[in-house]
């Protein structure tokens, strides 16, 4: 393979793209029997096209490139283009099949756009003039794009390096000295019952972007999962303390908090519980990862919470966890499933819905609903509990409709002010009572899609 210059700074004179274009033009007169394939890895979800994934994809293709005197190019956008001479087509098809299978968990390989086109890769039979011209055209386009990218790169923000143990030590020291209450955010979840919707709980959490800005301008706090987990244990305790001092006009009916299992057994949790005992109910959200790391602690925490009537929530479930684990084993009171647009896609959505069924739809909360179609899909499955940006907008719109000061605000402002619990943004609101109220909303009758009613 032609060795790329990975993210070299300064203008790149020779790019993989320009090498590809050169190669494409050179073979003009000897293109009989040649095949080129453009694998659109750039269309994968970002989490599925990290360095490791691309490295493995190239490794899978290598033997074939060697066998058929081929050339392979890794483009700057992660796409891979390769050319082969007189290949055995069955071989090539098998290899592409294998590669596609490797990415089978990504929508790119399973979502059918309905146009009959293969979104994963494009084949060019270079012996055919129209294919060859299309191939050269594609090479020109990507070369131009690469040039544009390298020009933009100078302006682009540099990616922060992941946090390391020494950096974590510094962050934890700094954390002890700052006030976190300004970084606390809240988001409501609703339960829709027939034609009305009520606020189920308000979730309180730390805004990571704010924390990042205040504590670690030069490294990515989320860049190392284990070190972040360690930090989050300390964060829990700080948030629990800060919440007790929070000045709200009206406490929510139910608090929901993201906590580490160990935090539930802390003094800070006991104190928080005592301070809220007469005012609000409590819901605690755990991560699957934490439960696996300390299952014994999870059982103990679950018992401890249920004994006093608190709710136990399993957070962060998605299509994959639902399919590859027996989630009922967690025996939680509520399961938070992250919405993704692919859930609306025929067969894939059906699989996800089927995987949810054993949990009981009344125990599912669809989270990160950022569109009406998310809510629509959920309602069609029998889900009643929702959270996300779309829900935020619904609540803000409802608040504004009943607010005497609303003529001075935009919907965006109202949404943002709902999200904070202190600071200037909250004081800009002319009616904090409305901001802290949990309105009961009237819902339109759910529109049923033809397939769902059929």
């Amino acid at each position: 393979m032609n060795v790329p210059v990975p993210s070299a700074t300064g203008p790149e004179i020779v790019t993989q793209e320009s090498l590809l274009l050169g190669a494409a033009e050179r073979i003009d007169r000897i293109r009989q029997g040649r095949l080129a394939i453009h694998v659109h890895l750039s269309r994968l979800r970002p989490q599925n096209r990290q360095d490791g994934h691309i490295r493995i994809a190239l490794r899978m293709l290598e033997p074939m490139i060697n066998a058929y005197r081929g050339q392979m190019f890794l483009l700057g956008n992660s796409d891979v283009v390769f050319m082969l001479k007189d290949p055995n087509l069955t071989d090539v098809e098998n290899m592409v099949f294998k590669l596609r299978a490797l990415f089978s968990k990504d929508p790119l390989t399973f979502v059918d756009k309905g146009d009959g086109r293969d979104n994963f890769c494009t084949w060019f039979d270079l012996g055919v003039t129209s294919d060859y011209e299309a191939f050269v055209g594609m090479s020109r386009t990507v070369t131009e794009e690469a040039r544009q990218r390298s020009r933009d790169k100078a302006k682009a923000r540099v990616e922060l390096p992941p946090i390391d143990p020494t950096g974590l030590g510094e962050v934890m020291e700094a954390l002890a000295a700052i006030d976190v209450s300004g970084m606390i955010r809240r988001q409501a979840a609703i339960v829709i019952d027939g034609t009305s919707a009520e606020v189920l709980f308000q979730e309180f959490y730390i805004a990571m972007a704010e924390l990042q800005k205040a504590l670690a301008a030069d490294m990515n706090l989320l860049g190392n999962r284990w070190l972040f987990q360690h930090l989050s244990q300390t964060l829990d305790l700080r948030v629990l303390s800060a919440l007790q001092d929070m000045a709200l006009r009206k406490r929510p009916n139910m608090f929901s908090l993201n906590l580490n299992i160990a935090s539930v057994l802390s003094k800070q949790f006991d104190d928080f519980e005592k301070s809220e005992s007469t005012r609000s109910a409590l819901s605690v959200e755990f991560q699957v990862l934490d439960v696996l790391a300390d299952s014994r602690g999870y059982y103990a925490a679950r018992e401890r919470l249920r004994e006093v009537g608190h709710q136990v929530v399993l957070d962060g479930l998605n299509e994959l966890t639902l399919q590859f684990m027996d989630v009922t084993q967690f025996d939680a009171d509520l399961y938070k499933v992250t919405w993704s647009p692919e859930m609306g896609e025929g067969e894939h959505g059906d699989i996800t819905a089927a995987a949810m069924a054993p949990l009981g739809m009344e125990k599912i909360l669809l989270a990160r609903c950022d569109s009406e179609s998310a809510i629509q899909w959920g309602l069609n499955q029998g889900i009643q509990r929702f959270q996300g940006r779309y829900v935020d907008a619904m609540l803000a719109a409802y608040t504004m409709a009943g607010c005497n000061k609303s003529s001075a605000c935009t919907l965006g402002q109202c949404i943002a002010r709902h999200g904070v619990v202190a600071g200037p943004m909250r004081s800009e609101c002319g009616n904090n009572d409305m901001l802290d109220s949990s309105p009961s909303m009237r819902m339109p009758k759910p529109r049923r899609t033809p397939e769902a009613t059929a």
Partner: protein
Amino acid sequence: MIPPRDERPVSPQQKAIAQRLVGQETLLLEYVHKLEKHRRGRRAVQVRLSGLQPINRREHHIRIAVNTFETLVKQLKGQIFSLSNADLVFIFKEAVLDEVEAAIVKLRFLFSDDPMLLDEGANGKPAFADWFLLERDYETLLQLAQRVATEEQQRRTNEFAKGFSKQMARPVSRGDPLTPQMLGKLEEHLARADLANMMRRQAVCAIVGGSPPQPVFHELFISIADLRETLLPNVNLASSPWLFQQLTETLDRRVLSLLNKHDDRTVAGDVSINLNVQTLLSPEFLTFDDNIKASMRGTIVLELQKVDVFADLGAFLFARDFAHDRGYRICIDGVNVESLPFVDRERLGLDLVKIVWDPLMVEGILPNGSTLSSYIDRCGPSRAILCRCDNQQAVDCGQGVGITLFQGRHVEAMLAAETQKSKGVLTRRR
């Protein structure tokens, strides 16, 4: 210490299991009995390794000490017994007295820095080595053998009972908690240090019925205990699960680079290595993969930690498919009796599940109320490994629920005893 009320009474059945175990102490007693009529021309020496500082009587020290007598044992000139208190008893023919004395000198030299050898004999302290002339001292040796056998039996019965109440107390933390700063320094050090001498291998064995253990593959790893002893003796490395996870990942990457660097054919197949999902997709792993003959990949097991698997299922599934495509086998590591219900081997497409032995398993019940044996049934008996088996109870319990693969200190001891037994057969044949 656990308060007495927490200790559950030992049932007669449990006592029977504990007593069935054959330790080196029992073998010693039997052997001394056999020698009753063959005292002439035989001598014995007791080497008091138990008097050494704990840091000087770790597993590998004992192994080295036992090996000192290896040649004589091979020549059938004597029998060595390695007691569980670390003491050695070597019974030998008079003809090799010089060689045995030489061996003792070697051992004295080996441990010459230890306080025991520095004040040996002072103020009536016991000697490093005690000699027996069987014609004259047979009764004394017999008493010694009887005493250690009784003590050992007692110890095992107690340990067994204690196992049950262990869950009451969280593991006692030893030393100061590990801080991020310490971890940072440790990682810096690890990047430079040569860890080759801390690399260990431990066998995963098939044990079916009463037949001797058959090694199936060997796990390669860096000994955390040695690392702690050498670099941070007063720190409890496991005080934070997440910092510990970060540390083990660093170590796993170091093992991989050691294997890539040393062309010593350590990876001649039938081994397992610990990896994390991201490392499996790294250039270092691809180098490792390049160095392995294709035919051998099927015998290599890649062990992934349970938290790593569940931290990002998407990444795990991708890495799993790639590893399977190359022919490797995948094992999920660190599953305990509490997390077992969450690990569905078949759904996750794993080849093996490594379960950490816990005396609680004797009860046979999982936290979700189902039985351990039904889990093993579903998992497939040849697909579950019971690891950290420290005693025979672990193996008995595992076999009771259908497990056939075992790993741990006790399994190592069984393997060693087996080697010894086969030497015994040779003696008789002669």
